[in-house]
């Protein structure tokens, strides 16, 4: 028998670590989603800037900075010393994934906006409500940026893929480097969150009026992503239970009989991954009409995955 008594009552440490609430899971979800959208919109346009893409697909790159801004808003709300938020941008610490992330977030904006501008057709500029009323210098700037984006569309697409992978992956790596928390200290979290970001990104995009072929392509990507995600989740728990020591086993136990078993298996595995996978396979084989059921479940599952991991990681010893 070993009994440890700690005579301490530090805010946010005791009785269990509770430093990160809803803000961090929401950011991780929106960050992964943005990364997925960046990769998929970049790859979707390989056939040529603006040609053959539905209007929704042409405009989806603009969803990335909007979603990311929401995520960054959540991050800001999490800070205990909000007035010092600018301090993220007075230093670059190579050993801190959070520092990498804060600078990376800045690069996302020009990359995604340029991709969106490069995809716009003249008809879009003439008919879209926000763009058709632009005059004078604003219209000139828009035209110049469009020209720049179109002329360098290959580079812009590559940049979006690389930055999207970095954004999707670093959120997992950030948790993964916190070795003190047994549930989080795994390199697998990086690829897991990236693949989850791809899947939720595809799900988000499938909510819109895409072309038939675009929807089918996204669905194929999504099916592959979900399968890889399930594999990575399996590997993650195997690693935790086998090489995580006693703390690792205790952390894994939270999901196999412990307090997070019900929510994890129902919201993440069954509703968030297995059910949408089955629906999408059925849609691919034309047994079911494409509907928003699968994307909606995937989005709920993606948010649940991150929410549960962030909470459970603090609950574990």
């Amino acid at each position, binding site marked *: 028998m070993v009994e440890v008594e700690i*005579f301490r009552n530090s805010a946010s440490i005791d009785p269990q670590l509770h430093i990160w609430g809803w803000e961090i899971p929401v950011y991780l979800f929106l960050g992964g989603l943005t990364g997925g959208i960046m990769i998929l919109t970049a790859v979707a346009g390989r056939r040529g800037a603006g040609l053959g893409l539905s209007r929704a697909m042409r405009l989806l790159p603009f969803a990335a900075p909007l979603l990311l801004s929401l995520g960054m808003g959540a991050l800001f709300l999490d800070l205990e010393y909000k007035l010092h938020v600018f*301090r993220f941008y007075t230093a670059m610490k190579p050993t801190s994934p959070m520092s990498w992330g804060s600078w990376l977030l800045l690069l996302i904006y020009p990359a995604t906006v340029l991709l969106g501008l490069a995809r716009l057709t003249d008809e879009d500029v003439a008919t879209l409500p926000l763009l058709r009323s632009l005059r004078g210098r604003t219209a000139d700037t828009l035209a110049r940026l469009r020209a720049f984006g179109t002329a360098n569309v290959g580079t812009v697409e590559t940049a979006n893929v690389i930055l999207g992978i970095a954004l999707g992956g670093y959120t997992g790596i950030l948790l993964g480097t916190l*070795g003190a928390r047994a549930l989080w200290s795994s390199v697998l979290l990086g690829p897991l969150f990236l693949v989850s970001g791809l899947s939720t990104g595809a799900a988000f995009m499938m909510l819109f009026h895409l072309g038939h072929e675009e929807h089918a392509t996204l669905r194929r990507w999504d099916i592959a992503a979900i399968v890889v995600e399930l594999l990575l989740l399996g590997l993650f728990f195997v690693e935790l239970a086998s090489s995580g020591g006693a703390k690792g086993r205790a952390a894994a136990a939270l999901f196999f009989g412990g307090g997070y078993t019900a929510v994890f298996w129902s919201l993440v595995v069954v509703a968030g991954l297995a059910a949408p996978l089955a629906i999408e396979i059925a849609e691919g084989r034309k047994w079911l009409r494409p509907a928003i059921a699968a994307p909606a479940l995937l989005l709920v599952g993606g948010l649940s995955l991150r929410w549960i991991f962030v909470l459970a990681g603090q609950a574990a010893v």
Partner: protein
Amino acid sequence: MLLKNYRKRYAMVMDTRRCVGCQACVLACKAENGVPHNGYRDWIVTETKGEFPHLSMEIRSERCMHCTNAPCVTNCPTGASHYSKGGTVQSDRALCTGCKACIAACPYDARYVHPDGFVDKCTFCMHRVERGANPACVEGCPTKALAFGDLNDSASEVARLLRENPPKLLSPEEGTEPNLYFLI
């Protein structure tokens, strides 16, 4: 990890055989540093082992370990958590955003969120050490269970204690190389 050639290497030795868990170190620290009521820069831990009636108890006064390879320094995005005099780990509250990555990274639960928004922890009372005094907890201990000094000085009490007694480290498997040694 980044200790290189610090002129002094500050360390603390905590003799668990002398500690009675009176909390004088906790009170001394609170008084000296104005630690808020819901924050603890140091605290007492009791560890009881065995089966009744064959029990043993170890009483420890714990605080920030001022690790040589500190995960809080590695993970801090702004440089607020940094290595300082004598290889100690200090927190610059002017740089702290309150992101709490350091709290998540610390295996010893040494840090806490100050009501003013920054993350705070034990400083080894550098403001006292620079004047030639001991940290408040060391001064306050009635059983002289705590010793503080420069490990690079072979005549210091900490160096002598570590020569004569094999120390115990907390969570050595984390690779942090703590500079708070426990004698058991």
